[in-house]
């Protein structure tokens, strides 16, 4: 990477309002922290530019007194709520969350556990309804996480269960779940599941960028 060679003047020429906006847009929708390298790749700029932009944005938000901040955590950049409004956010978090997994959520979680890695669409085809909202909840609780992308067109995000999930169940590995072997699902389900899944290994250099890297 040649960005060490760039001086500040050159840097500045990379930074356009367009890329700054794009960075804000991406960080706004990212579920996990986004690595600087990934942003650099997307914008075709050196990583140092991304760092510079993040620093600028961060300062702008702070100065404007927004209730959110842009921070760098392990793994990358993300938006989060500002510590000064934590009291409100805590009230909201306590308030807005339902205390039990619904039957639908439990089914979704079970499908992810047994069939991982699995895409949202594959879950939908098994359950018959879009699991989007349920996945968001499960993810926000740390029970499921993204596991790379499907190779197919669209490169759907694949989901799997987390270490926390195992801890909550009190088991050491997925192998300890009661086996499914004897169960024969009906044809449409088989088809839905077979219509799968050549997973690109996460460490595969040059493969599609992944938010989890």
């Amino acid at each position: 990477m040649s960005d060490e060679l760039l001086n500040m003047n050159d840097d500045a020429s990379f930074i356009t309002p367009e890329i700054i906006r794009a960075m804000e847009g991406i960080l706004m929708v990212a579920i996990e922290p986004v690595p600087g390298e990934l942003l650099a790749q997307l914008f075709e700029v050196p990583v140092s530019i991304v760092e510079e932009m993040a620093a600028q944005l961060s300062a702008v938000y702070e100065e404007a007194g927004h209730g959110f901040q842009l921070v760098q955590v392990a793994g990358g950049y993300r938006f989060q709520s500002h510590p000064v409004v934590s009291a409100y956010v805590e009230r909201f978090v306590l308030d807005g969350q339902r205390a039990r997994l619904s039957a639908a959520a439990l089914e979704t979680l079970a499908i992810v556990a047994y069939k991982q890695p699995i895409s949202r669409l594959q879950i939908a085809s098994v359950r018959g309804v879009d699991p989007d909202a349920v996945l968001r909840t499960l993810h926000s609780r740390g029970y499921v996480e993204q596991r790379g992308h499907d190779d197919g067109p669209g490169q759907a995000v694949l989901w799997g269960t987390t270490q926390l999930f195992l801890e909550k169940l009190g088991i050491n590995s997925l192998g300890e779940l009661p086996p499914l072997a004897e169960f024969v699902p009906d044809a449409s389900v088989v088809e839905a599941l077979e219509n799968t899944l050549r997973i690109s290994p996460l460490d595969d250099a040059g493969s599609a960028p992944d938010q989890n890297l």
Partner: protein
Amino acid sequence: MSYDVSTAVFEGPFDLLLHLILREQVDIHEVSLSTIVDAYLTEIEKMQDLDLDIATEFLLIASTLVELKSRRLLPGKENIDLDEEFALWEERDLLLARLLECKTFKDVSLVFQQLAELADRAFPRTTGPDERFSELLPDLMEGVTPLKLHKAILKALAPKPEPHIDLFHVAPVRLSVSEAVSELMDSLADMKAITFRNLTRGHEARLEVVVRFLAILEIYKQGFIELSQDDRFGDIEIRWIGDEGFATANSFSIDDYEG
């Protein structure tokens, strides 16, 4: 409205009819029913693998169109049965109303499309609280055991019962051709002669009329009746020529109608 003539796929009979009529909207007075009817029939012929339900709807509309067209060919009104005239008006108005309603929703669906396209360009934030707040979140998995999880996936994978949709009210009369044959054999043997119009009087559903028409053809094929029609579009006379005593022996074999 832009309708792409060459690539349009007509999903329904209204779709097609609207397209055919409105394509020539440039000068509405030039729109010719006969052109429409011909084009409509051509399109239907092209639809080889049309499923039966859709085909029926197409054919019903085609027959209405053909009837309208034929009516225009008639020189005057003198010999027109008034009932028939009313029925045709009703049919036409119904068709018109349905076309207008269909067009309304077709047009408004373009707005839906624009809204959806616009909305698709913005992605929602769904990230959720970061780890600072995680201890506040109630433990959703409390009480979930491996066994419960196993039960849940069995439930998810179990064959879903096919949603049962009761078709009872779709076509209240589900008379088969063979049933109609039996019924008509009885009444025809009694009546000796009757027009098809009179025979089907009181049967408002087109399906019922169609079924009886097929039944008449079947009975004709079996040699129990004679058919005659003096004028084009005139009444079809049905005359019983079978045995007197056959009226109750209504059980000859009937060819299946495959289409």
